[in-house]
């Protein structure tokens, strides 16, 4: 198979606006997601990230604009067919099928997801076993899903989403509540998934995690897109800094720099006090 076309667009998000009552949670958000990339979606609390995820995955119908995937408008597709298009997602509040085992949970996705129609029960369970090994849950495969720890539940969410054979995987705060080691493991898992050809859109609060994994970063603030581009550049951009830390912080930083510059200048003119 030839290398995936680097400029092929998987998802097109055009002029999305989402209004709840009198409040516009999102307005004029547009960007494209390249196939095979990892898009990090960041922004301060309340900037509309989860709302956007809900729009992209078809949970919400946007007030304006549209999200298209493979030529189809997602808003037109009923919930149970979104995965058949090739889009899967994890949810922030994880609720597995409690009385089924971990393996059975994933198997359900394998049975009814995109390739499900062609899979027998047996094949679905075998696929589930494969996926459990990829995410690192094979040791608890036969336990009821209700028994799992939080990090394991997150892994289960990812496994279930992968069982749908998606082209695009939306991950909503998958790393919330994980400690540092667990975050590193999760990042490794996501990189592995991406290497297998799945395009990722990741919503996360952990800057370090996002930067280390994303090929592009999209920044939302107050429902609008304020920056998009390569991670380091975006994070250094003044608008982004201002969005996160506020304009007063920015001004204070500038004032502090000014004071520092003046102190240096003064030190060159006069030797510093002998005292340290």
């Amino acid at each position, binding site marked *: 198979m030839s290398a995936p076309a680097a400029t092929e667009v998987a998802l097109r998000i055009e002029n999305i606006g989402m209004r709840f009552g009198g409040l516009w949670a999102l307005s004029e958000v547009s960007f494209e997601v390249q196939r095979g990339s990892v898009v990090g979606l960041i922004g301060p609390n309340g900037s509309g990230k989860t709302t956007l995820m809900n729009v992209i995955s078809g949970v919400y119908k946007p007030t304006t604009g549209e999200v298209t995937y493979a030529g189809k408008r997602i808003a037109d597709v*009923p*919930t*149970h*067919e*979104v*995965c*058949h298009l090739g889009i899967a*997602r994890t*949810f922030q509040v994880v*609720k*597995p*099928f*409690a*009385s*089924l*085992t971990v*393996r*059975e949970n994933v*198997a*359900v*996705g394998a*049975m*009814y*997801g*995109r390739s*499900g129609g062609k899979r027998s*029960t*047996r094949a*679905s*369970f*075998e696929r589930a*076993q494969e996926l459990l090994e990829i995410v690192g849950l094979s040791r608890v495969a*036969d336990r009821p899903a209700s028994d799992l720890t939080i990090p394991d539940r997150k892994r289960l969410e990812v496994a*279930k989403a992968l*069982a*749908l054979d998606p082209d695009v995987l939306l991950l909503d705060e998958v790393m919330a509540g994980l400690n540092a080691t667990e975050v590193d493991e999760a990042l490794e898992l996501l990189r592995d998934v991406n290497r297998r050809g799945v395009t990722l859109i990741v919503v996360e609060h952990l800057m370090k995690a996002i930067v280390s994994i994303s090929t592009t970063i999209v920044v939302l603030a107050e429902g609008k897109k304020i920056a998009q581009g390569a991670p380091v550049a975006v994070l250094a951009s003044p608008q982004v800094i201002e969005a996160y830390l506020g304009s007063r912080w920015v001004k204070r930083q500038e004032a502090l720099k000014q004071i520092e510059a003046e102190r240096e200048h003064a030190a060159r003119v006069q030797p510093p006090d002998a005292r340290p």
Partner: protein
Amino acid sequence: MTRPSTVATLRRIGLGGITGSPVAFAVVLVLMALLLAVPFAHNGYVETTFRYILMYATMAYGWNMIGGYTGYVSFGQVAFFGIGAYCSAVLSTMKIDNLFADVALACVVAAAFAILIGLAVLQLKGHYFAIATLGVGLAVTDIVSNLDALGGTGGMNISQVDEAHFSVYYYAMWLVALGAILATYFIARSKLGYAFVAIRENEEAAAVLGINPRRYKIAAWAISATMAGAAGAVFAAANGHLEPSIAFSPDSNIFPIVMALLGGIGTVAGPFIGAVILAGVNELLQRYFVNVHTLFFGAVIVLVVLLLPRGLVWLFGLRGGARAWLKSLTVNKA
């Protein structure tokens, strides 16, 4: 430690899972085999009793499919039972007295009816469905009682085979029950069974994984209607006479629910075991305390819900004995 992977392999390919304890299932099959011998006792009372056990077991399997596996409680199975019963009666007036025809027609009509009503009612969540089924049960009773074409409140008669061949009704019921058991087994093992359980556990998550909730809920209800209808058809033929108060008796609504609950909802063996135990108890009660059986069943429901919500089959499969059981009781406290 554990024996190597027969169990693990079985689990890996999906067996054992939502069918419930395989041991219990084996017990059920053995019991069914034994029940074949009943007519040879040449005791009419015994045969009738066991015929009723098989009938209630079938209906319990029906309820189990929609209420147990899919989690959509139905209080209206009596409607399908009655419809199936009247199918036999109607065929009899057309001079068709063939049990196969009776059951076949009952299955088709009951399923069609379930699909029709289900299209309206199953797009909504469990609350609405449950009460709607209550209404369906009562409504169908009302309507049939008022239709002169079906004999009104006086009912209809069904011509029967002679005394010597009466056991044919027993075997017919046995076959219907076997059908229900096997159907449940194969469905539970299949993708369909998992769709039902997924809907029960979390309908929205199931939809996200590609399951069309409405389609599968209707399928579950149609299957449960078929079982109830088949039981009704044989019942009517065996009874010889049918009127609304018999065809649509509240017992037909309540018994299957209690039996499935006690035996174990969402398992293959549960409804049968529940039916055997409770029908047996019911017989005893009838002998000594007439009219107390519904009271008793109400108490059983309350006790089972509080103490044994997953039923006996679960209890037998539970590791950890009494302590694990006691622990499970406080899990849902406010």
